[in-house]
């Protein structure tokens, strides 16, 4: 497979040796480029997600979706962003101004932070800690604080109710998310993102093949819990439009609302990206042990594999959103604590037995 780190080491050498820059300047330039890359990727993928959501939703409801602005409505999203940027940002008089202003920042930090962990290609990742998966769950939980502060700080009755609902739902489903990731870590034996993907290269090595039954259960539970964690339907109790207007972001206008919108769609992509990186092999191509087939598959670039798998999972989650009706709060909590949690714990033991007895595909 093509290793993207060849490019990064070449660029580093270019700055240090060819241009003769010192440690400080080369690291600064690299960091600025990485930051710009993250911003560009973040914005582009958010736009892609929003457009995809509109078209998928229209498809499921037998309508056309946006068609007017640009060719088949492709420029609609740019028009929306422009509108959000030029709208006034105003504060509610009795709101807690500090919490109100800080909340979108926390939501965006959580979202950008987890976004940077995704493995795009062999060697192409921004953050790659040896405690990667653990850090992802840690950073993503900052988002709960952001949403809670947004609702609480608005001093609006709808927002406060929504904040409580969102908080209790997100912290509950974090448990299942953690348990599923631990199940995956047991099989791969590492928490590092690149290590997890590397453990899935080879014939039938994707985690859902390698770990068969327990891995598939973990994958499905991860998707359900991830959907709830991203606050999307059927788990969108927190922003149930028909009863809470817009939930925790009722009082936000312009870009303040825009950030919640961005983060919501990016979280969908991140959940799908994590699912594909941890369970579906990330950039690892599908290999079946037949030389001719494997060689052809290995020629397809890793980023195509990663995007393909991720968009497939995104499409699956959108399908779920537009098919199932919204759950009540008691149903949401019952599903988590009485079904997914015990299932996750049993699955953990099952996976340990499978690994201990060597029943996985080696």
């Amino acid at each position, binding site marked *: 497979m093509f290793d993207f780190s060849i490019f990064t080491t070449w660029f580093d050498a270019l700055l240090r040796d060819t241009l003769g820059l010192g440690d400080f300047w080369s690291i600064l330039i690299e*960091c600025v480029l*990485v*930051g710009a890359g993250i*911003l560009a990727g973040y914005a582009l993928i958010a736009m892609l997600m929003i457009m995809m959501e509109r078209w998928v939703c229209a498809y499921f409801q037998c309508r056309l979706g946006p068609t007017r602005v640009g060719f088949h409505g492709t420029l609609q999203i740019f028009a929306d962003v422009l509108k959000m*940027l*030029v709208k*006034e*940002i*105003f*504060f*509610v008089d009795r*709101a807690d101004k500090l919490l109100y202003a800080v909340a*979108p*920042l926390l939501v*965006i*930090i959580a979202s950008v*932070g987890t976004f*940077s962990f995704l493995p795009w290609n062999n060697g192409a990742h*921004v*953050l790659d*800690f040896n405690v990667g998966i*653990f850090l992802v769950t840690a950073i993503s939980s900052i988002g709960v604080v952001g949403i809670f502060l947004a609702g*609480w700080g608005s*001093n*609006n*009755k*709808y*927002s*406060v109710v929504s904040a409580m609902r969102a*908080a*209790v739902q997100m*912290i*509950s489903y*974090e*448990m299942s998310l*953690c*348990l599923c990731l*631990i199940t995956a*870590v*047991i099989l791969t*034996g*590492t*928490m590092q993102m690149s290590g997890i993907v590397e453990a899935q290269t080879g014939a039938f090595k994707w985690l859902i093949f390698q770990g068969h039954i327990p891995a598939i259960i973990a994958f499905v539970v991860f998707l359900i819990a991830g959907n709830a964690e991203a606050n999307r339907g059927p788990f969108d109790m927190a922003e149930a439009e028909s009863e809470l207007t817009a939930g925790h972001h009722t*009082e936000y206008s*312009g*870009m303040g609302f825009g*950030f919640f919108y961005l983060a919501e769609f990016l979280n969908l992509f991140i959940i799908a990206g994590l699912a594909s990186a941890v369970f579906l092999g990330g950039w690892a191509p599908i290999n079946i042990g037949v030389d001719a087939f494997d060689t052809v598959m290995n020629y397809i670039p890793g980023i195509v594999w990663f995007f393909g798998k991720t968009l497939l999972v995104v499409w699956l989650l959108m399908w779920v959103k537009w098919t199932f009706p919204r759950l009540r709060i*008691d149903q949401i*909590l*019952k599903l988590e*604590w*009485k079904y997914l*949690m*015990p299932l996750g*714990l049993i699955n*953990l033991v099952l996976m*340990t037995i499978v*690994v*201990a*007895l060597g029943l996985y595909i080696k």
Partner: protein
Amino acid sequence: MNFTLLITVLVTAITLVVAAYVMAKLLGPRSYAKVKGEPYESGIPTRGSSWLPVSVGFYLFAILFLMFDVETVFLYPWAVVVKEFGAMALLSIGFFLVVLVLGLAYAWRKGDLEWK
């Protein structure tokens, strides 16, 4: 290098938010009216503060989450070494998992998992 990148990511996120806020302040109109500063509650005049005591059910689940989440944190380092330890790993974590499950069962039996 890893921690430099972590700080870069953090700064990037903050830049994104601050830049968009500044842009909105520069581009957007500004006006003030007393009604505009009221919270939107479907057109009904707001009465009293919204920071009221909320249902105790939320707190129960928060406490349960605290206990179980701390326990899953302990599982991460164990999960990394399962492959090396084999069957010993299951034995060594067995007691811990039994306590975890007993805790869940106790909460279930006590009715803490019901939404009240």
